């Protein structure tokens, strides 16, 4: 079986419990071979349910999906042989050492560490000095690296990483994404989910997801280009006062805090000086106004508010 896409999802739906709470609602997307595809959305958006259906752990209620050309329901055994999966709450065996964990997962997949060492080498050398340490005694960042090694050891064609960076500090997050970039160079297709919007730009293409529905699929660059209004970043000495003042200003369409600035979009024309004067009368000082390019987070906020 061959297919143009590494992952192909058509109208996937999943509900839970008696109340039929909809976790995944008519989701369709595809991932090209060798692509780094991100599912971006907050907790409870349905990311994990999608991952579990694609890794054959859950049966979809409606819709179909193929991974590597195999149907997720009929050919589940094939999929289990070829994919790598790192679940969100994955915490490895805390009472086994790094090496034992890795060796165990290698044998489960019918391979050895030596056979595919080149794949994990990059990541493994960072934790190898501690290979006799038990996984329970590792830091969050190290655990995450070990988990990635375990998911990679059998040379999967498609790698599923469910929220690999949640709860991890910014430095470790950055390192993790650098590792993913290098993996991509090895022609492994990667589907990754994250609640961190700033990680979106590191993916080839992304799907923004909320309440089980996909809001938008595209490359991060195109999404940013599609942002309809000119966005301004405004700063003053008092952030909260600034936002309250801006929200009262009639021409302001939307306004929210964004780091040290407030991101603001306007209805119709916007006059720099008029706004500055207004803000000054509101008691604000050190006012700075500048146009800024939107980010994925701005785009996501826009989608959520519509």
């Amino acid at each position, binding site marked *: 079986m061959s297919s143009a896409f590494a992952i192909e999802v058509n109208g996937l739906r999943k509900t839970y419990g008696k109340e039929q709470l909809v976790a995944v609602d008519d989701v369709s997307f595809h991932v090209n071979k060798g692509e780094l595809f991100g599912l971006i959305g907050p907790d409870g958006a349905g990311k994990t349910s999608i991952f579990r259906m694609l890794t054959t752990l*859950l049966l979809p209620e409606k819709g179909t999906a193929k991974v590597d050309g195999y149907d997720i329901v009929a050919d589940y055994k094939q999929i289990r042989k070829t994919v790598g*999966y790192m679940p969100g709450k*994955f915490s490895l065996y805390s009472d086994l050492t790094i090496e034992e964990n890795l060796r165990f997962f290698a044998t*489960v997949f019918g391979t050895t560490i030596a056979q595919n060492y080149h794949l994990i080498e990059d990541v493994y050398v960072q934790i190898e000095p501690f290979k006799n340490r038990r996984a329970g005694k590792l830091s969050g960042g190290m655990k995450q690296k070990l988990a990635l090694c375990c998911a990679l050891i059998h040379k999967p064609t498609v790698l599923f990483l469910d929220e690999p960076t949640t709860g991890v500090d910014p430095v470790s997050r950055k390192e993790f994404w650098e590792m993913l970039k290098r993996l991509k160079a090895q022609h492994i297709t990667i589907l990754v989910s994250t609640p961190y919007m700033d990680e979106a730009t590191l993916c080839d293409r992304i799907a923004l997801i909320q309440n089980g529905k996909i809001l938008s699929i595209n490359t991060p660059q195109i999404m940013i280009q599609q942002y309809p209004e000119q966005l301004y970043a405004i700063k003053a000495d008092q952030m909260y006062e600034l936002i309250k003042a801006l929200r009262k200003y009639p021409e302001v369409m939307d306004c929210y805090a964004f780091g040290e600035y407030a991101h603001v979009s306007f209805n119709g024309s916007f006059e720099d000086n008029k706004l500055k004067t207004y803000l000054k009368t509101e008691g604000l000082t050190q006012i700075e106004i500048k146009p800024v390019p939107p980010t994925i987070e701005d785009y996501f906020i826009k989608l959520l508010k519509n």
Partner: protein
Amino acid sequence: MEQFINFVKKEFAHVWRDKKTLLILFGMPVIQILIFGFALTNEVKNSEIIVMDQAKDQASQQIIHRIAASRYFDIQRSVMNNEQMEAAFKKGEIKVAVVFPAGFNESLLHQRKAQIQILADASDPNTASMLTNYVSSIIQDYQNSIDKTAAISYSIVPEIRMLYNPQLKGAPNFVPGVMALVLMLVCVMMTAISIVKEKETGTMEVLLVSPFSPLLVILSKAIPYLILSLINVASILLLSVYVLDLPVNGSVILLFAESTLFIITCLSLGIFISVKTNSQQMAMLISLMGMFLPTVLFSGFMFPIENMPYALQIISNLVPAKWFYLIVKSIMIKGLGFSAIWKETLILGGITLVLLVVSLKSFKIRLA
């Protein structure tokens, strides 16, 4: 196969590295045997005894003399009527009494046969049967000693009466009971917990999304506990033979074979619980309440099943521990062979088969 062996090795590592659990696993049977053994079968020394000698002849005096000399008994006093004796029993002053009927020596000499009555407070059945055994053996000794000097043998027939609990029901044959309990605990609870733990930590998800067969996952989880349980059986038997002086009267091999069957029963139950629960606490609670209690209540180990209401007696038939308890008792204490226990074995085997099929059927290859 190599995969499988590695999996089993990993399971052993889990068990081995969790020192606290390991201590409980192997310490529990030892402690239980010792507690049950010494609390219930502590050798009785210097028990207060009453003699009612209505004969007052040579033979009765000689036997009384022997009882007094024994380290097991202190003759509290002699009484002359039943009322006094009964009062002493009721006050708990004595546990046992010996009654010589009038003309004891005479009937022994002329009819070569005499009767003697031994009464015991059987509200503590274990002590009672031990004490009556001691008295009986003292009488037997005496009989042997007079036999040597006579051409025709004498026969003293001790008539034993157990007061308050005439049939000695529920006499704690505790070793088989403890075996059932320990195996239940180790296999059901530990297996259930170890599988549910993998669900909790998310490793089960990874194992499912691998070419490794889900059934093998379960099997390799069960094997370490099978071996651990056999070790426990061995340690219980060693303790009971060498510390408590309770020999295994029947075949040890048969005993191990039957234990293995029961262990498989328990493992199936453990797997079943693990399939139905998602947290370690839940698995533990169900194992304890749902498995441990019925074992204590319905195996016949603590409470005689015959005294239960009919409905409960029927329920007790569904408790695997009941059959295992009967089997072990038959082999260990009565020294019976397979021909005597094939029915129980068949029933236990049937229950096991059903449990195994149900638990393996309900084990899901997916998460929900």
